[in-house]
């Protein structure tokens, strides 16, 4: 069979140039996720030297705690956005689990029961999203704006405007504590483990591959035997479960279960994911880029706060970074194209 295949004609006029490898390296270096990585490292270095108290181990602990919710929710969010969908309900899921956690605690359940239960509650929120989006085929943006309001509303229904605060010290202390009282926060282990799992799944498994195919062309993915709807469904379930877990961590960190916990966090997460170079249209982006995006945002906020720059300015920085993360690559491409065209014109007029 291969014999006959070899004999095909040489009519095809299509030819490929050879200097591709150099361009590949260049394009990798100029891709947004590597730029953001470099930028993050730069910000960290500059801040450690120029911002007083930035490089201390205690500040490191604070930063890790500050980025904990964003980074964890960003892990499944990255996958969801890579498939071309979005989940805006995560922060509300967090709020709902936090409320439920307080309520269940008041009912006298043990904390060891409550924690897994809360993760399940988060997952159920994800199931609802997933069913509406993949089962009924509704647009995820609209669905999760709806469940954003719904879950947050339910959170208030469960706990009202009250707060539950008397969670056991050994749990709240674990979340805010460090390993052996040193510089490494306990939750960092959690972040590293989850980030590794998500990173491997996204970048080195058939499942991860299928996410990119779904995001870039769902129909072609379907024609290639990828279960598009089922894949997306499970992403929402995982996203809900992680949001539930973060709801637990949030509650324990502030030892306060409240319905309004984490409100507005969805925008911060989406901003971080997009800043990390994930395309809102799906099909493109990497987890390292997203992690860098989260760290960059958190480090900048932390450094600016230490420098007594008002929180207001942070808004402007975050927003500008977000827009620039997409705008800059576009501009460089356009400029390159223009330059090339001008050269052609010159060559032609000569």
């Amino acid at each position: 069979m291969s014999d006959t295949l070899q004999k095909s004609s040489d009519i095809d006029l299509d030819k490929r140039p050879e200097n591709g490898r150099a361009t590949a390296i260049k394009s990798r270096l100029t891709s947004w996720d590597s730029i953001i990585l470099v930028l993050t490292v730069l910000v960290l270095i500059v801040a450690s030297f120029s911002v007083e108290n930035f490089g201390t181990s205690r500040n490191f602990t604070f930063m890790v705690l500050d980025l904990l919710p964003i980074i964890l929710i960003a892990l499944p969010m990255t996958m969801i956005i890579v498939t071309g969908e979005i989940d805006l309900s995560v922060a509300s899921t967090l709020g709902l689990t936090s409320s439920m956690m307080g309520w269940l605690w008041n009912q006298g359940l043990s904390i060891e029961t409550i924690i897994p239960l809360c993760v399940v509650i988060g997952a159920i929120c994800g199931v609802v999203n997933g069913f509406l989006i993949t089962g009924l085929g509704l647009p995820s943006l609209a669905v999760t704006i709806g469940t954003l309001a719904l879950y947050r509303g339910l959170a208030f229904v469960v706990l009202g405007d009250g707060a539950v605060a008397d969670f056991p010290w050994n749990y709240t202390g674990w979340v805010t504590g460090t390993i052996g009282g040193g510089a490494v926060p306990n939750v960092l282990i959690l972040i590293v483990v989850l980030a590794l799992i998500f990173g491997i799944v996204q970048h080195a498994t058939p499942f991860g591959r299928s996410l990119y195919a779904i995001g870039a062309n769902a129909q072609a993915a379907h024609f290639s035997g990828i279960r598009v709807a089922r894949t997306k469904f499970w992403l929402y379930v995982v996203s809900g479960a992680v949001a539930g877990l973060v709801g637990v961590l949030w509650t324990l960190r502030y030892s306060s279960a409240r319905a309004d916990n984490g409100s507005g966090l969805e925008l911060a997460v989406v901003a971080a994911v997009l800043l990390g170079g994930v395309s809102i249209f799906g099909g493109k982006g990497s987890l390292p880029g997203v992690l860098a995006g989260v760290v960059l945002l958190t480090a900048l906020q932390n450094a600016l706060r230490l420098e007594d720059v008002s929180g207001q300015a942070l808004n402007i920085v975050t927003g500008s970074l977000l827009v620039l993360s997409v705008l800059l690559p576009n501009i460089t491409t356009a400029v390159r194209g223009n330059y090339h065209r001008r050269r052609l014109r010159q060559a032609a007029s000569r």
Partner: protein
Amino acid sequence: MAEANARPQKADAHNDPPQTNDPLPQANDEAKVANDPLPGASGQPQEASDRPREASDRPRKTAANTQLARLEVHDVSKSFGAVAAVQGVSFPLYPGEAHALVGENGAGKSTIVKMLAGVHRPDTGTLRVDGADVDFAGPADAKAAGIAVIYQEPTLFPDLSVAENIAMGNQPLTKLRQIDRKEMHANAERLFRRLGVPLDPTRPARGLSIADQQLVEIAKALSSEARVLIMDEPTAALSAVEVERLFAVVRSLRDEGAAIMFISHRFEEITALCERVTIMRDGKHVATEMVADLSVDDMIRRMVGRDLSALFPKQDVEPGAVVLEVEGLSREGVFKDISFSVRAGEIVALAGLVGAGRSEVMQAVFGVDPYDSGVVKVHGRRLKKGEPRAAMAAGMALVPEDRRQQGLVMDLSIERNVTLPRARKLARLGLLFGGSERAAAETWTRKLQTKLGRLSDAVGTLSGGNQQKVVLAKWLATGPKLLIVDEPTRGIDVGTKAEVHRLMSSLAADGLAVVMVSSELPEVLGMADRIVVLREGRVAAQLTRAEATEESVMYAAMGQEVAA
């Protein structure tokens, strides 16, 4: 040869509009380099063959050369990135003529169309309308200059009514500059009467069949009273009847003095409609001749730059065991009670008019579409419905109709595309390592002689023919027992077409069962051992190779209508 080419296919992706589902054939298709004209291409001996022609469709001789050209392409060049898609092309288009533009895929035809449509601006050279230089800043300018374009793929607004689609930009207005809907609908009715189609102007364009969409496009072009009508493969999705009706309208337009530019891969249509033909190869102008002065072979030779061997080389193979059995397959409103079987070593063609349900049947068989009742068996085992994975596990592979939307993920690399259906098998301990994927992709792209730079390039940077090879590689790599190919040669150039035919033939010879869906009758007749003809969602006839002639297939496909 290879290093002579400057490369960045990558860069040209950015010249396209940012939408991912760009209905335009991407510039990439055209953006191929060729600074390596085949020896003797320009000095090809031009045997003027005086083929006999029926008087009825003999093109009129135009008084072309004495007239002022309605539209002139003058020394135009256009590059995408470093890839020169069109280089120094010139030709005139006269009022009252139908002018064919032919060339292989990647020859630069679509780039010319897009420049005339105002989508792209020429890098150098000028376009002239009625002798005056024009510079189109956008499609609106071209439209204002009286140029109407019918694209290969319809460009309708699904949410708007058919009448609104036709009138967009030229809506009749009331005194208050509001849209006069009554008048708009009446206009659309008039156009449809002229085209002889029974479409409701108030229905939304969403859900129209491709053929109906194409007819709306034509109505759109007619409504703008274009002085230049450019048609980029308008007939690809039309049935023979519809094509004839279209040609009648086009001829009357031509007789009213419009200039027609017609792009097609079907030579019989060119000879039926056009007086003159411009041939392009590798972005360059090869010749502009009277159609009557050229034989089809001449045209092909000049397009390709050399002679072609037989187009449809199906070898005779003794059929083996039954591989696929389809029994009583039905899907409400799409197809009903479809039964046929395919044996190993056999090529079975599904023929029929567009909209007869051929692709739909095969998509249901493969599991990408659901069906209501019926049974699909592979090697005697019943297949779970609506599960492409089950079909794949049973050894089925589907090379779909729409390469860009169904066959490939354009933004992903070649290797990822090739390994997409079997990433699970390549994984070790559930993990994928770059090496195994690359090796698998390399093997198959080489076997199919795919011309590519690096396997990590986005597949969208390849030419149409090579993209089709990647789709074939992707599915052959799964080691199928049954290969379904849907329009395997649509939109690919003559050279690659022959390669694909040879490949299919040799695969069948090696014992593969092949089901081919095709709208090209010569392809069907040349390749198939048996032909299943569908009409309006039902099996109209099953013909053996011996029974099959153009007439018998068409008769079955069209029913009584053909009697005339």
